């Protein structure tokens, strides 16, 4: 295995005559927190779906967690975690039952699941709520739980698709502490967001415009390059060059 978690070479995805992703290339280091930014319709979700093995690129090549994107999607799925913008734990199962289910899906044994569940819930301060139905938890807790479930099986990479949508600032702060902790333990974090303050927390950031990556660097380098005071300025400048309708 290389020391890169993800490498992508010239990936293109077309839907009929529409080119959603237009020949992008990038590499992500192990343990890095990689911010993946772009306006709605820029192609972020399409890229993420390809990296997760949910759809295949029309052309190009890439490796995710050491597996080929074109041929080894099943192996990729075993080595990643995923948290979608739509809350997707089972609301009518308890906290513990959700962890038990997803642990089992990733091949953990019943005993190992039980041990990890206790450890994880204690760390989160959730242990008292272990038998609470997920739908009865506040939204912020649900999001934290969804993230913890996504990394429950210690994946190589975790993909977070706008994980903090609709969450209050305090909970967002706590959420990012969880992300840092995961990165410290060696998990590569690939995160999309519309909050530019969150972009500042990332090790490196890429900004997609109209299916291409227009900028990729650390937040401080990007600000210097675009002579901007904040990531928000950088984003505004790049997003304004977009020609696509932003509601695609």
């Amino acid at each position: 295995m290389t020391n890169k978690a993800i490498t992508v070479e010239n990936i293109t995805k077309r839907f009929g005559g529409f080119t959603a992703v237009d020949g992008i290339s990038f590499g992500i280091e192990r343990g890095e927190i990689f911010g993946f930014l772009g306006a709605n319709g820029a192609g972020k979700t399409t890229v993420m779906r390809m990296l997760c093995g949910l759809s295949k690129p029309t052309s190009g090549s890439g490796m995710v967690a050491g597996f080929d994107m074109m041929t080894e999607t099943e192996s990729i799925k075993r080595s990643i975690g995923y948290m979608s913008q739509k809350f997707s734990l089972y609301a009518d199962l308890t906290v513990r039952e959700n962890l038990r289910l997803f642990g089992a899906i990733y091949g953990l044994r019943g005993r190992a699941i039980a041990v990890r569940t206790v450890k994880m819930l204690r760390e989160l301060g959730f242990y008292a709520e272990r038998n609470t139905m997920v739908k009865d938890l506040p939204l912020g807790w649900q999001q934290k739980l969804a993230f913890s479930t996504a990394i429950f099986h210690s994946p190589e990479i975790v993909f977070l698709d706008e994980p903090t949508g609709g969450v209050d600032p305090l909970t967002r702060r706590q959420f990012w502490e969880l992300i840092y902790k995961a990165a410290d333990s060696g998990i590569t974090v690939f995160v999309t967001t519309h909050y530019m303050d969150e972009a500042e927390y990332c090790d490196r950031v890429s900004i997609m415009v109209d299916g291409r990556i227009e900028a990729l660097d650390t937040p401080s380098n990007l600000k210097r390059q675009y002579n901007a005071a904040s990531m928000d300025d950088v984003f505004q400048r790049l997003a304004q060059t977009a020609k696509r309708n932003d509601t695609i």
Partner: protein
Amino acid sequence: MLLKFLLEKEIKQIRRNPFLPRLIIAYPVLVMLVFPWVANLEVKDINLCIVDNDHSVYSQRLTEQISASEYFCLSGTAATCDEAMESIKRNDSDVILEIDAGFEKDLVRGGNSTVMISPNSVNGTKGAFAASYLSQILSDFSDGIREELPSGGPPSGIIEINPQYRYNPCLDYKTFIIPALMVILLTVICGFLPTLNIVGEKEKGTIEQINVTPVKKSLFILSKLIPYWITGIFILTVCLGLAALIYGLIPAGSLLTVYLFAILFVVTYSGLGLVVSNYSTTMQQAMFVMFFFTIVMLLMSGIFTPVRSMPGWAQAITYANPLRYFVEAMRAIYLKGSGFFALITQFFVLLGIAGLFGIWAIMSYKKR
């Protein structure tokens, strides 16, 4: 191994559903208690209006004899035929019996007389039954008169017909409809519930989460179907018990054959549900499409009306209808006591349809 965890999830979710467990218990009980009485094609309590133009002893006797029958209620007498027609229009009467003036005189003199029967045939079956029951009473009546009259006259019937109704000796409609009600229950439970369950996960977005995990799609779907298969067999068992307890109706054939066909059928019909769920993105859509197919299949299965009396093109369609084979098999086992080998055609055709739905379900899933 993983299947165990997935099944555990599905069963917990079904049990926690505020509505499903009650439905699963209450539905078969309700259907078996109520519908054998309601879904009934027997014709009883026909309202009869008599126009007696003769006012004689014999016409009075005929009226009494008819009123004594359990099939007829005397709704009234009318002075004229027009008045009687009015009562049919008001829906007070179903059939008119008009007795001519001189009825008694003709009988005594010539041994021959006529009456007119006019049934309301808006409901053709009911009209036909009314006319035939009434003719039966009239013929009994004339036999009685003939014996009394001194002139005697020729005996009316030389051949006496004495039907022996096979497999349902009392012509009890309940016996006929109960196995069909079981078929309808299994259709609804095993067709709709898994379909709505799968599309429900699509709507909530949880299926997307499952798609990014290494769990095999086929295993995931299987974990959704198995609980409903078991539910279907449980419901069938409840129905079999109720049919025996309440109606004393016990399959003439082997229970094993009943279960064999039921298992094959629930697998087949949930296959259709899978296909529908693959093409639907919302519960509304899935519900509507399932309703469409289920109603067509119910009406074209022979459950309510015999397949043989459908037009040729409709009969051709019924060959592709899994319900047709299942209901044929259920009635044959229940009423005639047919064994497995008498129903081997139905078995293999159902098996074939199950296979087709299975292949279709897999292919339509992969395309998406």
